[in-house]
C-alpha cells in the first residue's frame, strides 16, 4: 500500500477545548504511517449556526477552506462530524449549482483563490476504515481493548443526511450504522449494542434550548450505561463536549447519576496502538477517564 496522505481540517474545538483530539489524531496517524498536512489556513466551518445567519457567506468561507486542500491535491479529512457536514454541504451545493459556484468564486478571486471541486472530503473515521483498512489496523494493535465494553456513539452529522454523504462514509446506513462497531471489534474491544447509538446528543441547542439538550444527552448516556458500557466513543468533539463536560447537570436533569468516560474516536485507537498518555490526553476530560490507561 502506498502511503496515505491527507490534508487535515482541524476545526475549532481541536485547537481550543479538545487539544487531546488533535494530539491523539496525529499520534494515530503516525503509528499507522499516514502522512498528515495540517491546513493551518482553514477557518471555522460555521458549525451550522453561521449558516443560519448567512448561508452565502458560510459557503464562501467553507469553499476557501476546501481550496487549500485542492492546492495540495489531497483529500481533506475532518475530525469533527459538524465540520464534515458543513464542508460537505458547501461542496455539494457548489458542485451541483454552477451559478452559485461562480458567485462564490467571484468572492474568492478577491483573495486569489478558486474553488474547483477536485478534493474529496472525508471524516478520519472513514479514511481509516475505507482507505487504510481494518485488517491493517488490526496488525498494529499492541494493547487489545478486550477488557472494555465500548458504546459507539455515531453523532448525527456523519450519518445524516445519507444522500449528502454518499460514498464519503462508505454508504453507512443511518438506521443501522456499523463503522464504529467494526473499528471497536478490530481493536478487540466489545461493542455495546444500544438504541441511542445513532441519536442526537443535543449539543447544538445547548444555549437556546438547554433542557432539550440535557435530556437528549442524558438519554444516550444512560442507555449506554444500562447496557453495561465501560466507556463511550464518538467521532465528534461536539458530542464529546456535550456528554463529557455536562454530566453533573445532566445527572440533575435526569434524576440519575450519570458517570461514563466519553472518548474521541482517535483516543480509543491510540489506546489500542500503545500511544503515550501525553498523546492520548485523557487528563483533559472533565469526567474521570485516566483509569482507562491501566484498566
Amino acid at each position, binding site marked *: 500500500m502506498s502511503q496515505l496522505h491527507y490534508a487535515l481540517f482541524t476545526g475549532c474545538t481541536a*485547537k*481550543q477545548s479538545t487539544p487531546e483530539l488533535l494530539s491523539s489524531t496525529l499520534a494515530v496517524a503516525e503509528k499507522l504511517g499516514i502522512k498528515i498536512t495540517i491546513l493551518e489556513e482553514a477557518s471555522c466551518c460555521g458549525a451550522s449556526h453561521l449558516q443560519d445567519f448567512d448561508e452565502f457567506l458560510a459557503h464562501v468561507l467553507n469553499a476557501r477552506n476546501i481550496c487549500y486542500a485542492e492546492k495540495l491535491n489531497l483529500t481533506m479529512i475532518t475530525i469533527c462530524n459538524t465540520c464534515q457536514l458543513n464542508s460537505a454541504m458547501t461542496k455539494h451545493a457548489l458542485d451541483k449549482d454552477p451559478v452559485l459556484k461562480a458567485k462564490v468564486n467571484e468572492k474568492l478571486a478577491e483573495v486569489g483563490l478558486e474553488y474547483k471541486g477536485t478534493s474529496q472530503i472525508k471524516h478520519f473515521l472513514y479514511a481509516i476504515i475505507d482507505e487504510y483498512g481494518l485488517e491493517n489496523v488490526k496488525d498494529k494493535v499492541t494493547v487489545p481493548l478486550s477488557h472494555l465494553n465500548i458504546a459507539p456513539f455515531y453523532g448525527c452529522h456523519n450519518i445524516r443526511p445519507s444522500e449528502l454523504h454518499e460514498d464519503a462514509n462508505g454508504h453507512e446506513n443511518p438506521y443501522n450504522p456499523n463503522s464504529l462497531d467494526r473499528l471497536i471489534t478490530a481493536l478487540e474491544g466489545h461493542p455495546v449494542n444500544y438504541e441511542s447509538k445513532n441519536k442526537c446528543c443535543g449539543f447544538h441547542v445547548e444555549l437556546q434550548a438547554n433542557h432539550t439538550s440535557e435530556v437528549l444527552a442524558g438519554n444516550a448516556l444512560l442507555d449506554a450505561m444500562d447496557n453495561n458500557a465501560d466507556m463511550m466513543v464518538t467521532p465528534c468533539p461536539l458530542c464529546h463536549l456535550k456528554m463529557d463536560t455536562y454530566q453533573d*447537570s445532566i445527572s440533575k436533569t435526569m434524576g440519575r447519576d450519570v458517570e461514563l468516560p466519553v472518548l474521541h474516536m482517535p483516543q480509543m485507537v491510540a489506546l489500542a496502538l500503545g500511544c503515550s498518555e501525553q498523546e492520548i490526553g485523557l487528563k483533559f476530560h472533565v469526567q474521570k477517564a485516566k483509569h482507562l490507561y491501566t484498566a
Partner: protein
Amino acid sequence: MSASINQNSTTRKVTIKAFRFNAETDYLPYIKQYEMEVGKDELILDLMNKIKWEHDGSFSYRRSCRHGICGACAIKVNGKSVLACKQNAIELLDLFDNDITLEPSSKKRVIKDMIIDKSDFWEKHAAIKPYVVADVDPRPSHESKQSIEEFNNFMDSDLCIQCGACHYACPALEVNPDFLGPAALNAAYRFTVDTRDTAGDERLAITAQMGSGVWDCVKCFECAEACPKEINPIEKIGKLHNLQFVRGVAQSNVATRHAEGFLRGMMKTGYLDEADIVTYSEGYLGTLKHMGTAFKMMKSGKIHWHSGIPFINSIPKIKNLDEVQKLIQISQTNKL
C-alpha cells in the same frame, strides 16, 4: 433472526414482529410474531395485510391510496420511519438482518396497534397558517402570475403529504412538546416564500418564537432522512432561519446572537471563540449559569494556558487571516 431462502422461488420465509396495543383494553403493549413468506417485490403494507388477512383480523393500521400520496400508512420499522406502501420489505429485512419489528410512528400516541392520535400534528400545522393569505378579487380577470423561479422556491416543500413521518422522527419534539416540528415548519416556509402570500412576516414571527420555533431544532437531520417525499424539512428550517435576517425581522436573543456571533471570533482569529460565543449569546448575566462548567473545564485543562491567557489571547490565529476578514467584509449579506 429466523429466516430461510426458498431455493425454488425468490421468496424468503421470515418471522415478522409487530407492536400490539389496544388503548381501551390493554394495560401494556406487547410484541407478537407472525411467520410468512416475503417476495422480492412486496411492500411493508403487504406484510401488514398478510398479518390482518391471514393471521389476526384484529390487527389495525391506516391505509388508503396504496401509492404514496395519502400519507395514511406511515409507521416505523426498527425505528426507521417508512411509508408502508412505498417501502420494499426485503430491503429492510436485509438492512436489519431479517429481524424487523413493525411499530407505530409514535408509541406514546397509540390508539390501536399502528394507529396513532395525530392531533398534535394537526394542531401545529394549523398554528402556522398553512394557506395563502391574500386579498383576491372575487372576479379576477386573470390568474395570479408566478415565474418558474418563484414557483421553484417552494415546489418541493409543497409535495408534503402530511404523513407525520418527520414529525414523529423528531427528537426535539419528543422532549419539548411545544416545538412546532419539521412538518409544520416546512409548511410555514412553503407559504412564506409564495409570492401571492402577504402573511410572511406574521409566520416568521410565529416560527421565531423561542421554545417552539426554528431555534429549538436540534439539527439532527432525522427529518431529512424520514421524509418519504424527499422534501428535506431541515433545509427549509435553515431557510426560515435565514429569512429572519434577510427580511430584517430577527429579534436579538440568545439564539440569533449565537448564529451571528460566530463572525466575532472569526474576524479576530479565523476560529470560533468558544468563550466569547457564550458570553455574547447569553449576555453577562446569562453567562453566570455557565461558570460551574467553565470552572470544571479550567480544572481539566479544556480551557487552557498553552497558547496564551484564557479569554484574552489563548486562541491561535489561522494563516492568511486577512483573507477571511476580507471575505467576510465583501460576502456578508445579512445583519442582526
